[in-house]
């Protein structure tokens, strides 16, 4: 289970990356689906995949 601080850090990093990408690649900012997909990738899929890889 994620601790509160770790979870907050994930969202802050996800937000910073999304903002940076969005400034230079504005098409990313136009779609809610892409935004939600990016968030799922950043705070769930990638951390889960990383945990799985580290466990092996």
């Amino acid at each position: 289970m994620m601790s509160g601080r770790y979870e907050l850090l994930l969202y802050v990093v996800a937000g910073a990356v999304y903002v940076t990408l969005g400034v230079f690649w504005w098409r990313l900012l136009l779609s809610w689906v892409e935004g939600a997909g990016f968030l799922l990738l950043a705070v769930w899929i990638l951390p889960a995949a990383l945990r799985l890889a580290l466990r092996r």
Partner: protein
Amino acid sequence: MSWAAHDLEPYAIQRHLGRRVAIIPLLVGSYAPDMMSKWFVYGINVFGVELKADDPATFHRGWPGVGFTHSLFFGVAVAIVIVLLTRNRVYGFSFLIGQWSHALTDMGDTVGTMLFFPLTTQQFSLDAWAYAGQTGRFTDAGAYYSGLGFVWDGVWIAYGAINWKVLTKDYFREVVLPADSVWSWGGRYLPEPALLALYRASFFYGTTRWMAWLLWAHVANDFAFDLSWGGPDWVPALAMVPLRVLRTCPCGGSCGACG
């Protein structure tokens, strides 16, 4: 029009109404008025053919057009359909509140919304920021993030930050999840971090988009800030149309009122 408020306002409503609303229909209601029309306002290119409304503002907010989606009665009508189809009053109420918040927020620009359509096509407007959808997506973005529009969005981000508990895991478990069985159903296929990300997605999307467009407008580009009422003045803003009552006057057009 608003660029991020429609993503953010539902969380403020959620905070105040708790289990009396369900966040998914609330968000759908908040997005509904623009859902099928925004692309046609800015125009898209399909296989080399430019598809765009001849008169974007009238199409988006007026009549004839799809401006009726910004009417309070449209929200009521769709909410009734939702209740009839789902037998769930919370869903209907949530959609209604979300749609009303959209319609009322869009009153902030210079074109306004037909709040009382079909009784009247009068567009009600506060004229706080320029409506510049007709200029295309980029100039509109630059104008919106240079005038009071982005300030209004910022108010909702600040409000969300003050009421940060609405975004916490505990709030999700205690308030959001019991109000809507969709989350329990989703929990059968997705772990809690994924459900939480979906719950927070619109707030994340609205906040990060607000920051990114602000940086795009004033760091990557050189749009000038103008926080005057109805500004920015450098963009050709459209204004609301005069009062037109749909009901036909019994005089047949001869009296002074309908001349």
